[in-house]
């Protein structure tokens, strides 16, 4: 059996424990150990990239499956498909970068700080690996705690407000999600309220739920969908559940913002494509539901961009740009075709890279000036040319300039949206214009013009460590921008499976005339691959 995923999950925790034994004043050793552990985790996650299996099938690889709480059917079940693997790689990369970027930014309680960052990494990787709902929920909640402390202890002036808001808001969503999970559990076994159960053995097996998805009655499917939706939409965050995000971002320390934007938000989109869509395909494929979600996504794009335009705080601006970017991701996922789905997945990664990069860059300047107000800057490209260049590249990635990653994602998403309904693409494309406008305006006000403020004249350009935190992100942005094929290949089978699940549900719901039915298989070609991919639950347990 393969223990790679367990290793990835436990290694950061082990590192955190080791740090606990280090004396508090040995900050150098603490930093080195934290960076080393995160670095090692990143290196150990690389086999996920090279696994050929993701490129060949939508199946889950690196499986681990152990009994945990037999009476409830809870298992310690891990496994990843191409999408999850990519998100784990993003997580391990951003973790090491954010730890490395904190060396000078955090000067109080360093020991606890790095412990929490490492614990956070465990939670995040766990979420992407878990194939058991119970386990998933545990990791999902585990993740909240370190983040809560990161914001609440090392945050800005309104850190307590932001931390509590973040915690409660997401907790509220997760509790609703928990209800959905419990409902699924009972539907699978005894049934509840007026829904008759399937009479299966108790199980929290996610793959099993994927299999019984077609058996879920339409009304239950709808309830489940909206319950999951609330949990994940808060996490994404979708309009109108987004207001925790700007506060959390503004108050969080730089590393917290990077992780928050880079990974935590992806939990929401990941939730949609791992649970909402495959488990409630009949609800999702309901065109009213689809339209509702798409409309919220598009509102998110335009609304987020417009609000970002008038922000005076750089971090808040980037936070609102996240709302817009994730609107794109959601639009792609809910286009229900391969282009949209893959675009959504790739854009999730892209957003992690470019927005993570933007937060790092804002953090660099904040560390020097202890302000993030745009009005406090101006003309600083004269004193920080390298910084200005790095910022420009990441910014261009963020606004979707071709040959950088953002374009590849946005382009594919928009193709998908256009194919689903061209009006959606039309509205979403306003976001492309506004995105350029607010970002370039930000850049102009911060970097161009005369050096108006005396304090900025002595600003030092980025040092080597800071360059080293940004350059990997830039390289990744360029890679995905120029040669995204491996990324598409890695996510293609898994996303095709999700699309097929939704398409099948739609086809099942609407009996089609024979003539059209004959043409349909071409349109949903990957459908045939589905049943074979999902190994029967019993089979899995047998290993």
């Amino acid at each position, binding site marked *: 059996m393969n223990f790679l995923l367990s290793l990835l999950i436990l290694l950061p925790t082990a590192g955190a424990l080791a740090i606990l034994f280090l004396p508090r004043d040995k900050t150098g050793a603490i930093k080195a150990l934290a960076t080393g552990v995160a670095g090692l985790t990143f290196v150990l996650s690389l086999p996920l990239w090279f696994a050929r299996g993701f490129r060949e099938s939508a199946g889950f690889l690196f499986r681990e499956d152990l009994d945990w709480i037999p009476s409830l059917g809870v298992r310690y079940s891990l496994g990843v498909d191409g999408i999850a693997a990519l998100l784990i790689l993003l997580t391990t990369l951003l973790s090491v970068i954010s730890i490395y970027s904190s060396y000078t930014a955090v000067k109080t309680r360093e020991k606890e700080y790095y412990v929490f960052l490492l614990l956070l990494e465990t939670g995040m990787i766990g979420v992407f690996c878990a194939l058991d709902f119970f386990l998933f929920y545990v990791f999902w909640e585990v993740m909240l705690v370190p983040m809560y402390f990161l914001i609440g202890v090392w945050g800005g002036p309104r850190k307590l407000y932001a931390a509590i808001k973040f915690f409660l808001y997401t907790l509220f969503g997760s509790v609703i999600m928990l209800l959905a999970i419990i409902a699924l559990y009972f539907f699978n076994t005894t049934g509840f309220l007026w829904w008759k159960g399937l009479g299966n053995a108790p199980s929290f097996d996610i793959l099993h739920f994927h299999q019984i998805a077609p058996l879920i009655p339409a009304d239950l499917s709808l309830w489940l969908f909206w319950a999951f939706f609330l949990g994940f939409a808060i996490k994404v965050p979708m309009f109108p559940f987004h207001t925790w995000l700007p506060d959390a971002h503004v108050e969080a320390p730089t590393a917290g913002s990077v992780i928050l934007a880079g990974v935590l938000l992806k939990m929401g989109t990941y939730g949609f494509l791992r649970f909402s869509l495959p488990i409630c395909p009949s609800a999702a494929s309901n065109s009213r539901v689809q339209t509702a979600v798409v409309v919220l996504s598009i509102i998110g794009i335009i609304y987020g961009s417009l609000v970002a335009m008038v922000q005076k705080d750089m971090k808040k601006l980037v936070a609102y740009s996240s709302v817009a970017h994730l609107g794109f991701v959601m639009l792609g996922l809910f286009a229900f075709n391969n282009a949209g789905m893959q675009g959504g997945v790739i854009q999730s990664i892209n957003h992690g890279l470019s927005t993570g990069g933007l937060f790092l860059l804002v953090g660099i300047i904040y560390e020097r000036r202890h302000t993030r107000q745009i009005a406090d800057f101006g003309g600083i490209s004269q004193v920080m040319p390298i910084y200005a260049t790095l910022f420009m590249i990441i910014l261009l990635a963020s606004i979707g300039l071709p040959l950088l990653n953002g374009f*590849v994602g946005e382009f594919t998403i*928009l193709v998908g949206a*256009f194919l689903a309904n061209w009006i959606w*693409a039309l509205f979403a*494309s306003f976001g492309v214009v506004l995105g350029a406008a607010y970002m370039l305006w930000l850049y102009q006000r911060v970097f161009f013009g005369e050096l108006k403020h005396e304090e900025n004249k002595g600003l030092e350009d980025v040092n080597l460590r800071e360059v080293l935190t940004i350059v990997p992100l830039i390289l990744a942005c360029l890679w995905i921008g120029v040669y995204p094929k491996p990324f598409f290949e890695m996510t293609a089978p898994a996303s095709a499976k999700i699309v097929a699940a939704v398409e099948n549900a739609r086809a099942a719901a609407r009996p089609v005339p024979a003539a059209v039915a004959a043409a349909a298989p071409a349109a949903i070609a990957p459908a045939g691959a589905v049943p074979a991919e999902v190994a029967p639950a019993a089979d899995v347990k047998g290993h």
Partner: protein
Amino acid sequence: MTASDFLPWIPVFPLLGFLVNGLLYLVAHSRLGGKDAPLGSHGHGDAHAAGHGASHGGPDDHAGHGGGHGAHAEIPFKSLHTWVGPIASGLSFVFALLAIGSWWKETHGHHPIVATLWTWIPMGANAGWFGSPDFSVDVAFRLDPLSALMIFFVTLIGTLIHVYSVGYMGHDEGYGRFFAYLNLFMFAMLTLVLGANMAILFVGWEGVGLCSYLLIGYYYKKDFAADAGKKAFVMNRIGDAGFLMGLFACVAMFGTVDFGKMFAAAAASPAIYAAGGLMTFACLALFVGATGKSAQIPLFVWLPDAMAGPTPVSALIHAATMVTAGVYMVARCNVFFRISHEWALKTLGENPTVWGLLTHDASFVVAVVGGITAFVAATIGLAQTDIKKVLAYSTVSQLGYMFLGCGVLAFGAGMFHVFTHAWFKACLFLGSGSVIHALSGEQEMTAMGGLRKKIPHTFRTMFISTLAIAGVPFFSGFFSKDQILGETFVKGHPVLWVLAALTAGMTAFYMFRLIKMTFYGEYRGPKETWDHVHESPATMTVPLWFLAIGAIFVGYVGIPNFLVPGGNRFEAFLEPSFPVLPPDWTPHPHVASHSLEWTLMLASIAIAGVGILLATKFFYPGSAPFALPEKVVAAFPKAYRWVRNKYYVDEFYEAVFVNGLVKKGGRLLWEIDARVVDGVVNGTRHLTVGVSHVSSWFDKTFVDGAVNGVGDSFQAAYKGYGKLQSGQTQNYAFGMAAGVFALVCIYIIFA
């Protein structure tokens, strides 16, 4: 090596140049490179800006000649930049020639050559409108007559402008940055024209937009330059959104964005793709993109502002190459526009109304927008006094001309004007740069005059180019303009012809006005500037002469066939880029009689002549150079104010869109976000806290009271219970029976 081996190198050389120049510049300006603080060089950059921003209020771009010469610090790596920049562009020219040469040998220009490098974006199977093939985008370059034409003059003129920049930017502290951007621009522009599919074209399309942004904002310390750059980028993005919609429509229709495949499919069965106006939709969306890139109404206002960039940039990007990308794209997609046109005629019947055409025929929209833009921009050009602004509006106007040509389905004529315009307009801009250089940054023509003796090379080359743009016979512009005018008339658009003819007259007028105000009469600027006036170095005058010679002769590749049979080699060369449509989708050829062709030609000569004559009569008829113009202005003060202020379009956009919709809208939404959306969240918090207080009180009073009460009652019960402990068995038995009875009752009732 074959053509497809040479092809990818053409954009790669400038890309390498960009990397080398960019990295050298960064190294020179960074702490990492070990050089000391960049502040030193910047202090002196400030001196530049101050030194000559003060001489006049206008937006001058040229950083300090004259005054500040002595103070210049060494530009790090200057000689490296000097070599790398132009050579990168030059190599690209050489490889363009090699590629074109071997392509010609291989196919005689009849067949396109496509070099596919790698799969860029594979999107898998998606249901399009007509079937669902696997859709993926390749990184691929295509060489066919259209792209061959473009790479030829883009690399050649680009290289000349690189050389010119060595002289022009020689004293600028951002020398290396300038060449880095210029090289990057060449890369993007060549990617644009070589792209074998719409997505790669779009890569270049966005790339040139970025470089334009960077180069317009090159003097980023000045707010107007940074503003202009941003404006250009955002306006272009509006167009890009349209372009993307067109591209997606192509994806939905053809399941591919490869030019070869799309055009073949469209040409094979136009009826399928035209049905219901699909093709018209796609064309109009694409044309929205073209209006952004090529500065047409309604997205034209960025181009005049773009003159904030250094003059070589204005020449290369905002005159000769990038702004013609929209025309190139429309010509590239000529099949679509032709199909849209035929579909409109088929749908609308014999006598279509103008409104019908505007809503059905994309090519007609192109022609109308082009014609109106040409006219409007020319009127604005009449009243500008900034030398570069005149040229900028002239460019907008000429671009309108090119679209007019494409719109009347004379794509060859439109492209011909792209080609000739590149030479004379680049020359005019570089000439104006030379003038500005000579006058230490002066751009207002009201402060010029009498320069022809002092800077003879600049004068002569600019004069030649002015003859070309004015449409004087035997100069290049004459042939291309005349073709567009002729085709417009012959294809049955007399109103547009009148508009275009008036434009031609105005063009001749304002260009000669420019020449007269700049080079003739008495000098009107400050004396000390006059003493410094000097002809530019050879790095600048040699490219000027190159371009001027081009401005004379390049027109001879397209002599009208009615003058010299087979004289229009240009159109014959481009022919393979215009695929043949089925007969019922091909319009009847409009055969114009020789007498009509002659009449039209003489008419356009006459119009140009009138314009020139008026300008010469208007300015400097004697001792009071501006007496007559001032009289005219006094007679029509309102009209003058409108024209002089560009019809207040900028102000309108600023008020309605920028400040109104976007900023006010953003602020409103932000208020809503903070008060309403977040208000609900915080409200929930307050509500929860409030409820908590209530429950806390409830808890203390009742729940806790109840608990305590229970305790109390137990104590009381205990006391009573003690009495039950009677010790009598029958009492216990009764208790048990009663208990069982109660349980059974509960079971029966609830089970």
